[in-house]
């Protein structure tokens, strides 16, 4: 009986493993690859010799050889990873920079300027108009409980008006208790609660911010968008003050030849409620395609704060009155800059962005 070709397999494997552990660089590893696990390796030679075995011994020997090959290959790959990691550490070490040692005076920047985002610019312009009218500017969180986003705004669970907003629900707490805010109005509630707590009524604030609606984006809408909301809670404040503020804002932001008008609408958190329209900024009121020949375009919603909302935050509706309004910052930007497709705002194409200053 002849000696099996695998009689010294274990020894050969140990030799290979030892050789692998000796390899000390990725270059050396690459060179050693054919001779260790490739076609020129001893394992491949042994593989060929299996053909000489009696058929009954062949499968057993094959399995042994397979297992040996796996061990060697694993060791080889492990070594490769080790060496790569060492090489990365080495190159990172070579690349080390003591940031505190940077000589700032020696750095020269190109003589070009950047460009602010159009939403930020628009938001600042709007804020400035309202600050000049006596408003402060407040902000609130983007994740809200359903209480702030809906119920305190006079929309109890299952209220059909909740369907006016396509809501993203956040996977926290009980189902549908946490949402991405669908409007900036929850910030009103936070502000009023704080004012009640600190006994600091009256309130005159605008609240800009990012909102979310589960609505497939198109040329006029994005699922993520920005609103600015206004709230006044004071004594002796009513609908005519609201109409006056809207008109002053309209002329101040859009220009003296643009005016506003209100028409009845429904929002759960205001009563009376109104939609406010402004003179079409394209045709200046003479009628065009943008305004469907009416001369007017819708900008936002507004109204006298519903007593239910005041009640929810503990404000006496007999002593205090107030009004609220809200509209899209993105929409103002779209109108002012004639942005044909709102999706350009999230494309971040520098050729688009560099048009703003």
């Amino acid at each position, binding site marked *: 009986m002849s000696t099996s070709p695998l009689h010294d397999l274990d020894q050969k494997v140990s030799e290979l493993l030892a050789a692998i552990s000796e390899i000390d660089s990725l270059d050396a590893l690459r060179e050693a690859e054919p001779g260790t696990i490739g076609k020129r390796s001893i394992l491949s030679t042994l593989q060929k010799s299996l053909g000489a075995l009696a058929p009954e011994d062949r499968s057993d020997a094959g399995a042994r050889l397979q297992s040996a090959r796996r061990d060697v290959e694993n060791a080889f790959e492990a070594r490769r990873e080790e060496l790569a990691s060492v090489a990365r550490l080495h190159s990172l070490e070579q*690349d080390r*920079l003591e*940031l505190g*040692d*940077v000589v700032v*005076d020696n*750095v020269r*920047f190109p003589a*070009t*300027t*950047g*460009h602010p*985002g159009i939403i*930020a610019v628009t938001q600042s312009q709007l*804020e400035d108009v309202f*600050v000049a*009218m006596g408003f*402060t*500017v407040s902000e609130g*969180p983007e*994740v809200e*409980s*359903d*209480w702030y986003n809906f*119920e305190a705004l006079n929309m109890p*669970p*299952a209220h*059909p008006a909740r369907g006016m907003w396509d809501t*993203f629900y*956040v996977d*926290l*707490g*009980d*189902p*549908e*208790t*946490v949402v991405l805010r669908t409007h900036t109005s929850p910030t009103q509630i936070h502000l009023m609660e704080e004012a009640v707590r600190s006994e600091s009524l009256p309130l*005159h604030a605008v609240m800009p911010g990012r909102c979310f609606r*589960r609505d497939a984006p198109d040329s006029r809408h994005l699922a993520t968008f920005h609103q600015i909301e206004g709230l006044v809670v004071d004594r002796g*404040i009513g*609908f005519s003050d609201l*109409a*006056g503020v809207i*008109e002053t804002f309209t002329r101040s932001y859009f220009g003296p030849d643009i005016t506003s008008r*209100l*028409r*009845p609408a429904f929002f759960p958190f205001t*009563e*009376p*409620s109104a*939609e406010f329209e402004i003179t079409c900024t394209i045709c200046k009121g003479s009628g065009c395609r943008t305004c469907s020949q009416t001369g007017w375009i819708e900008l936002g919603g507004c109204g*006298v704060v519903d*007593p239910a909302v005041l009640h929810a935050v503990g404000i006496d*509706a007999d002593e205090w*009155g107030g009004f609220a309004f809200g509209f899209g910052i993105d929409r103002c930007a779209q109108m002012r800059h004639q942005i044909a497709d709102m999706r350009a*705002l*999230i494309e*971040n*194409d*520098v050729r688009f962005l560099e048009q703003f200053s």
Partner: protein
Amino acid sequence: MRIPLSWLRDFVELHESVAELTEILDDLGLVVEGVETVGEGLEDVVVARVDEIRAIEGADRVRLVVVEAGDGPLEIVCGATNFSVGNYVPLAPVGAILPGGFEIAERKMRGATSHGMLCSARELRLSDDHEGLMILDDLATPIVGQGLVEALSINVDVVFDISVEGNRPDAWSVEGVARDLATRLGRRLKSPATVSPTSPALSSEFASTGIDAPDLCGRLTVSVLRKVRVQPSPAWIAERLRNAGMRPISNVVDASNYVMLELGQPTHPYDARHVANRTLRARRAREGEVLTTLDGIERHLALPGRGLGDTGDDCVIVDGDDAVLGLAGIMGGSSSEISDATTDVLLEAAFFEPMSIARSSKRHGLRSEASNRFERGVDPQLALRAVARFVALLLESVPDLEWLSEPLDEHGIVPDVTDVELRPGDVQRVLGVAISNDEIQRLLEGLNFRVEERDDTIVVTPPSARLDVRAGAMGRADVIEEIARLHSYRRLPRRVPSWPQPGALSDRQVLRRRLRSVIVDLGGVEVWTPTLVSDALFDLAHPGAPRVRVTNPLAADESVLRATMVTGSVQAWAKNVERGTGDVVVAEFGTVFVHPDAIDDPRITKGGDGGGMVLNLPKESERVSVLLGRREDSAVSAVAFWAVLGERLGLADVVIRKDENPERFMHPTRAGVLIDRATGAVFGRVGELDQAFVAQLAPSLDGRRVGVLDLDVDYLADRTLVVRRSDFVTVPSRYPSALFDLAFVTPATVHAQDLAFALRTSSDLVEEVRLFDVYRGAGLPEGTRSLAYAVRASSEERTLSETEVATLRDELIAVGAHLGARLR
């Protein structure tokens, strides 16, 4: 809601132009979204009979149809397939001009010649129906060649498409719109014709009813109609329905739809043969019950839904065997549907609790014309008036119809209507103008409110239809809105209020604007990347970390709230590099989120039904991330960028330290943190992106250095965490400054900024210390480097003498030595 002008005119005299009416409706809050003229320009269209349909060789979308329209066979090429030989259809012959000005000419298609056009209802502007040709088989006696106008008794009409707000259930009908118009215009509102029961037989001898869930069903009336013959409706009813956007089906179904459109009351006719014991009851569905609704979908009833507080209540209508016939107020089942063979009809007209209808409709994803009305609130008193109108309509096609006496009428719980008191000054306080009591009375009575003056208070009783009018202060607001609306918002005065409190930006907003302005001046192009990112993108920076997830994302790769903006900014920048516009600095301001379970200080807020639950919400931080992606950029330019920015923010003393625990996107040996030396607050990171990380997001950018600056705006805005320089300034000395350089050989453990700080603060004479050179290598011991500083010094009192400068120099060398640096 589509409302034909002719229908409105049944209720109120209107001689205004369409444009004037549109303006008035808009101003009433009944927003006109479109105006359409129907039935116009159809003089050339005739009735034709389909005699033959042939395939056209090589065409699979069109067929050749041979029709007879009185002058012998005509060959027409037609793309519709909803008809067969023997049907009657409208034909626009060659030379006809369709509404909208489209002129029919002979056309050759696929080798065949078309001598006219067969039309859909939409092509004729008779309705929105474009599901194929309009089929005219319902005509009592179709006559080929007869003008369509004559055959269908078509009248020219104007249709307003009106959008009715959610708090005006009373206006969601022709009568409701007409009532608003009549009140605004000061005209009389007419009532439509109704009838009384036509048969002395008692309803209770034929049918029975009951309410087992009085909280879900506030009223259930069942009327019995006998000797019904199901057939097409009279032409004028069919025309009205078409103009209102509904397809005529049969006289019974059409009467039900007509009444719903006209008065706002949904009704449901059942074929009495298929209602066991001719009994209709309303009860709560039981778990395990299944109903196949008319749309063919199996509905599993009484299963609690996902909605907050949704207990799974479904109200169902059952028969005498307790078998479920329909989902009450939403949709019926097919078992008891009206068919051509129906002769006895049980007509249900009911009131269902609006909120439970809303929940059921949402839970089953099933909305219908009926559920839309019930969930807003149908007038609980309307049911039998609607039935009386229904019967009047049905009598037109079935003159010997029998309506049995004393319709069954069961009551459950109906929401209370409460009186609302308007105190003197209430209206003026809210609207800013006084409106006379007479005018208030006229306006409100026009809407069926009862108005009574008691002393100086006006007591207003809303009609049963106005379920939206609440009690107390809220009811006052509701009533005042109605007064304002009918009076016209445009007639209310405008007043610009003022108050003593000044307007202002917050400290944070001022800081943010400053940040933005400097970043832009330094080359930053502001981007806006998604707040919602993919799991894969999240894992790139924070593998395996808890994440805040959206349960109903629009797309799977927009389902996780971002924990950093850097990844998004890299993507935005990389796309620009691909476009050849990537030689820029990109910057983004925005919010990042941390899962409440991952931190000790989640945001705690109230939520849940009634705000009674305490919720842990994600921690939100505002950050600004800047990527320096120009070709020459690296950690070095990022540090310089920060230096300018920090200076412009007026920060007192910030140092850059090695980041011992860098984020995965940071280059591990080029990562620094920004620390306020006084408070120890870590408020940002600066350095370079890890090239391996960049390569994962944009393989083509492997090897490119990208500087990064990532700041926590919350910290920056808090002066107790990041200290700003005092607003007080010093006037420089009038005496000349002395300038000298100091180069120290320093061990790696000494920070260049610390050494500069020590030198600057060691003596009142030192005005400024600036690092101007760093040298490593030949001539210096291993592990050390040379730091060269330019020092400027002066005295308030005199020009510094050479001796004094030399002394100062020695003092500064000693300061250096104290820190382990020796003069080179």
